[in-house]
């Protein structure tokens, strides 16, 4: 996954993947409608609390990158509009977007997500394809890292920057996609996978009281943010 997971499963990890996804999607969509910094800050506060409860530990480099990114965006916004409230709202909205991702992605194992998706009318092939993307994305990223290392060793002796990019990264990645396809297809079929046949599912996630509680809290936050934006709290 893109986010480093907590070392042990917290209550956030145990929530139904669709509940977490709904909150992530809902907050992202709602943040697009808000312009009041205090309302956006409230959404951000909820997401931050979830983030802390899930014991997600982003690396220092990632925090630094996010801070620089948000700082640059805020600075550019302020420079363009000369309106601190507008710049703050833009920055907070982006922060909501960034934090809404790990609510689901950082606390849900690919296997859990695919198990939840197995209950939907999606074809089994589609569900397994999704699982394959999550499973092999890090492997592919590691391969790209090695390609870049090989390119660093070659230096400028092997042509200009474009040639090196093309021959050293683009072409190997295309071969990599085909290699993965051949190997994974064979391995999947050897494990009895058929895109047409139905599959059973071990430990399919089911929604419970904790999910209802989490949804209610999220809904409460959304209502409060809405009140700050359009109700008596708005200037």
């Amino acid at each position, binding site marked *: 996954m*893109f986010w480093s997971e907590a070392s042990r499963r917290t209550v956030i990890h145990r929530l139904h993947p669709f509940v977490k*996804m709904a909150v*992530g*999607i809902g907050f*992202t*969509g709602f943040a*697009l*409608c808000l312009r009041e910094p205090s309302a956006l800050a409230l959404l951000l506060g909820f997401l931050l609390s979830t983030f802390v409860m899930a014991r997600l530990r982003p690396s220092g480099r990632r925090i630094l*990158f996010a801070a620089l*990114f948000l700082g*640059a*965006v805020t600075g*550019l*916004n302020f420079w*363009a509009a000369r309106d601190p409230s507008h710049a703050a709202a833009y920055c907070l909205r982006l922060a909501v*977007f960034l934090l*809404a*991702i790990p609510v*689901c*992605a950082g606390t*849900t194992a690919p296997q859990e*997500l695919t198990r939840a998706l197995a209950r939907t009318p999606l*074809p*089994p*092939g*589609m569900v*397994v*394809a*999704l699982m*394959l*993307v*999550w499973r*092999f*994305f890090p492997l*592919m*990223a590691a391969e*790209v890292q090695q390609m870049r290392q090989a390119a660093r060793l070659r230096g400028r002796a092997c042509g200009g920057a474009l040639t090196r990019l*093309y021959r050293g990264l*683009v*072409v190997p*990645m*295309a*071969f*990599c*996609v*085909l290699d*993965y*396809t051949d190997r*994974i*297809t064979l391995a*999947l*079929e050897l494990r009895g*996978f*058929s*895109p*047409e046949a139905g599959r059973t599912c071990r430990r399919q996630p089911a929604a419970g009281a904790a999910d209802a509680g989490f949804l209610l809290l999220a809904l409460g936050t959304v209502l409060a943010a809405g009140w700050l934006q359009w109700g008596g709290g708005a200037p």
Partner: protein
Amino acid sequence: MTTSTWTTREYVFAAMTAAALLLVASILIPFTLPLRIPGLANAVNGLFGSFFLVIGLIRLRRPGSLILITGIYALVCLAISPVISGFVMAGGILGELVCSSLFKGYRGTLAPVCGAVLYQMGMFPAAMLLSFCFLPERYGEIALWVFIVAEAAIFATALTGSLLGLKVARELARAGRLRLEA
């Protein structure tokens, strides 16, 4: 698209192409977003994204291939952001509709290039439309010429990426890894 249409290999290939698209986007997009130039992210992503899409479409060939690849990609993006998922699907549907009705699939070289370019070009208006729905006064201000220039830039990079994809497809064929039609 019916359940029995696609083989295991086609699902896997579509998944790997989607993984490559995700990888390219995750490397390139963070560098373009802070600049806040309309269409820049799409234009930069279009170069490499259409490269992989063309190879994917050449390999899959059948009608619905673009929807299969972008559908898997959109599902992955759903866990990241529904907005991204929305415009990925919009681009995929546009490209698929045009290519399925005009070319009946992705045989030859024109249809895959057309599909990849339309996908990239379709994403930007969809993203603008989605943004306009949420922030009408802000996005309503963007002049038409900005939109046209951005689309032209996306067209140029997506076409370049697609042609590069065709070139690499020939190399893949030479290495015995991809079967090209005469």
